[in-house]
């Protein structure tokens, strides 16, 4: 027999009303506007776009404020919104070599065409809290350096010479890129599908896994060949126009990790590569993605799979924080009936156990008496 227990409608309605009140907070404090979040919490907005897998700054800002700053809740909101929209198609692949660069650094080559351009970075700051910022001080306008424009080819294109660094990842010509939003995950998976999963994967999870490879769990000797951040143009092929229609530009972060590789039965000694590409400005995420991408290529490169970061099914199945939070957080929902059933089971097992114990004790006593 199954008996459904209903209730809590008024409590739920009032809880949501209370949530709305607490979200708004003290009414004497001005309410946040979305443009303030877009402009001043830009990297938080970028994280929501990247892991929500939807490039739309205002929607991400709305999600951040609606979630009271809870990033995973905001990402969940964005993911849910995505499912309500029709899909117009797949863009042509972006050309990161033609990016309008806002930051570009290489840890392997000092003098590369276009140079080392720091851009708006936290690097080399002293990580001291700034009381002047709290007091609302005005900030200086940026310095300008009117120099001739200079091409900034991807470092991978420059380094391809000598054949000591592997080429960009190729797939058979007839390979159609897989899409995890259309087909369920299947293991083993091709690198293109892994990259899609990693690009929307949880930053903290990928960071920890990337870190683990540096600490010796699947060590792969990484160098940052290049990180670049900036805007790339999007174009879409549509049937109604004889050319690819320009859609505007989006900001992305790209990381080319270069890894020393001593060679294996499958590949000669060379530098291998891991790749990261994420929405918005997030080099931590792009770097972690590149480290994981490289670690997950273990089988392809003939390395032993010995660590978590190399285990494709482990990494990809657990990288999505919306899935992860859904399964973890569902535990708090009512499980009254399940628990009652388990309680009955444990009670019975306990009774049997105690009966056995008592029997053993009685037997011990008898034996001692004899």
């Amino acid at each position, binding site marked *: 027999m199954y008996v459904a227990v209903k209730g809590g409608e008024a409590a739920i309605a009032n809880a949501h009303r209370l949530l709305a009140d607490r979200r708004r907070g003290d009414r004497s404090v001005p309410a946040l506007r979305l443009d303030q979040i877009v402009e001043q919490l830009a990297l938080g907005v970028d994280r929501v776009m990247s892991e929500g897998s939807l490039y739309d700054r205002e*929607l991400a800002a709305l999600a951040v404020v609606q979630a009271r700053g809870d990033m995973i809740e905001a990402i969940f909101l964005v993911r849910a919104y995505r499912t309500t929209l029709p899909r117009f198609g797949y863009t042509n692949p972006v050309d990161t070599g033609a990016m309008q660069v806002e930051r570009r650094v290489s840890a392997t080559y000092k003098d590369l065409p276009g140079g080392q351009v720091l851009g708006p970075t936290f690097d080399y700051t002293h990580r001291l809290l700034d009381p002047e910022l709290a007091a609302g001080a005005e900030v200086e306008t940026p310095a300008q350096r009117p120099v001739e424009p200079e091409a900034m080819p991807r470092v991978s294109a420059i380094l391809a010479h000598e054949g000591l660094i592997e080429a960009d990842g190729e797939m058979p010509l007839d390979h159609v890129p897989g899409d995890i939003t259309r087909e369920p995950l299947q293991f083993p998976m091709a690198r*293109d599908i892994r990259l899609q999963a990693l690009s929307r994967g949880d930053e903290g999870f990928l960071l920890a896994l990337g870190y683990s490879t540096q600490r010796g769990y699947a060590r792969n000797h990484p160098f940052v060949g290049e990180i670049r951040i900036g805007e790339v143009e999007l174009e879409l092929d549509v049937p109604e126009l004889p050319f690819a229609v320009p859609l505007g530009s989006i900001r992305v972060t790209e990381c080319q990790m270069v890894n020393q590789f001593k060679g294996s039965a499958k590949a000669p000694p060379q530098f291998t590569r891991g790749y990261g590409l994420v929405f918005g400005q997030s080099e931590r995420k792009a770097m972690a993605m590149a480290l994981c991408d490289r670690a997950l290529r273990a089988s392809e490169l003939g390395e032993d799979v010995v660590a978590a970061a190399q285990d494709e099914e482990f990494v990809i199945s657990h990288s999505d924080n919306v899935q992860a939070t859904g399964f973890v957080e569902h535990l708090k929902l009512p499980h009254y009936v399940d628990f009652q059933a388990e309680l009955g089971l444990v009670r019975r097992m306990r009774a049997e156990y105690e009966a056995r114990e008592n029997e053993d004790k009685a037997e011990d006593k008898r034996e001692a008496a004899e």
Partner: protein
Amino acid sequence: MRGREAREQAGRKALMATLAHAEADEIARLWNESGLPSEAELLRGPETGLVTVRGRIGGGGAPFNVGEATVTRATVRLPSGQVGHSYALGRDKGKARLAAIADALWQDPVHRETVETKLAAPLRAALDAARETKRVETAATKVDFFTMVRGED
């Protein structure tokens, strides 16, 4: 003839790119000043949907899907018969409608010049100026390496 067609397409595409990058308010303001007509029949949309953004493995290798972006599109027909399309990132339906009308007007020899001079040129100038500012601000953060010589030898 083929060359002319290619130039024609390049010009149309350039206008679409400019409109896609431009702010909706800016397009509307210039439109009002331009005297361009804005009546048109909506054949499709404006409607918002998604495109899946693709990248390439390693930057230049095989394509893979990165994630989605919102895009709004519209298709219009002018009273004179030209059909215009627009696509742009974001969810601005007013902008999509105006951009589609601009595309249609651009195909009409009567209006092309006005669209180019009163709408596209000022939008392009503003976009170029913003890009240039960003470029020189970024350039100011370029590292100039120098070598320090230590010791006598």
